[in-house]
């Protein structure tokens, strides 16, 4: 499977993501610049972490209106897998490809620490490497990760099983509603999450819990549900 990483000015975990994909799949990902209007032929599009356009105005707001995002929206509508991590998640919500918004952390400060995540829905191409209710480790590093959705939207997200991950064991670092750490779109081919699985994929990182997410998204698991 071929992956593409979209780079915006101010993206800064694009290099982490690139290295992680290469380590896991042995293949370099395509790099796509924010002004590109077409995407390379690929099965997985990744919007990496960082501070696109400085996160000025609202995190992800300016990037969400970049030319490349039209192509991303089109691909998403066609069923191509799209993963947004951290700033990528913020961009996806700003672009309307995912429900909800990411507000300032409840503690108001940037938070970088390891949290625990409960896998809320493993029936999905991104999460099928985990089991229902499994608790995994994952680092977070963000200032605006406080997931919020209006009650009606929230009810829908919950009833459609669109929550991918929840902060577990009292480790919610930012005040997110219902401990939501990651959500799918309704079709299940777009995932946004605040934690950084790309920073926990090899022994040097002190753990490999993030690895299965990429292995699943790249169809590299032994028994991937189609």
């Amino acid at each position, binding site marked *: 499977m071929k992956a593409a990483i979209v780079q915006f000015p101010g993206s800064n975990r694009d290099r982490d993501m690139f290295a992680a994909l290469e380590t896991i799949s042995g293949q370099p990902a395509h790099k796509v610049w924010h002004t590109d209007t077409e995407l390379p032929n690929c099965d997985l599009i990744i919007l990496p972490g960082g501070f696109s356009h400085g996160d000025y*105005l609202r995190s992800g*707001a300016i990037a969400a209106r970049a030319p490349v995002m039209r192509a991303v929206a089109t691909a998403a509508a066609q069923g191509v897998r799209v993963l947004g991590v951290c700033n990528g998640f913020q961009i996806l919500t700003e672009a309307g490809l995912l429900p909800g918004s990411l*507000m300032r952390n*409840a503690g*108001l400060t940037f938070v970088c620490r390891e949290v625990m995540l409960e896998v809320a829905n493993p029936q999905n191409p991104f999460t099928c490497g985990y089991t229902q209710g499994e608790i995994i480790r994952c680092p977070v590093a963000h200032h605006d990760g406080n997931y*919020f959705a209006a*009650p009606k939207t929230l009810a829908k997200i919950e009833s459609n099983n669109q929550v991918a991950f929840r902060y577990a064991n009292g480790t919610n670092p930012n*005040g997110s*509603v219902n401990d939501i750490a990651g959500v799918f779109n309704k079709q299940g081919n777009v995932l946004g999450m605040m934690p950084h699985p790309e920073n926990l994929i090899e022994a040097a990182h002190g753990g490999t819990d993030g690895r299965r997410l990429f292995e699943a998204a790249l169809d590299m698991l032994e028994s991937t549900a189609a």
Partner: protein
Amino acid sequence: MADKKFHVKVTVTLKNGVLDPQGKAIEGALGSLGFDGVGSVRQGKVFDVNLNAASKKAAQEVVSDMCEKLLANTVIENYAVEVNG
């Protein structure tokens, strides 16, 4: 066409019911600084935009369009546009 200069003030505020962590933190901080009687605080943004437009109405329209397209996230925010000559 000879455009005129306009100074436009845009105010963007969170919709009712939308979580405002900053406002809430400020309430708390004001309390601990000894300010009593504070009911609620909500934080928003203002933008001072200088632009050229054919008329006041045109300025109003173009800035509203800017709000829809960028300055406000209309899912969670309201905006108000005020044009000064």
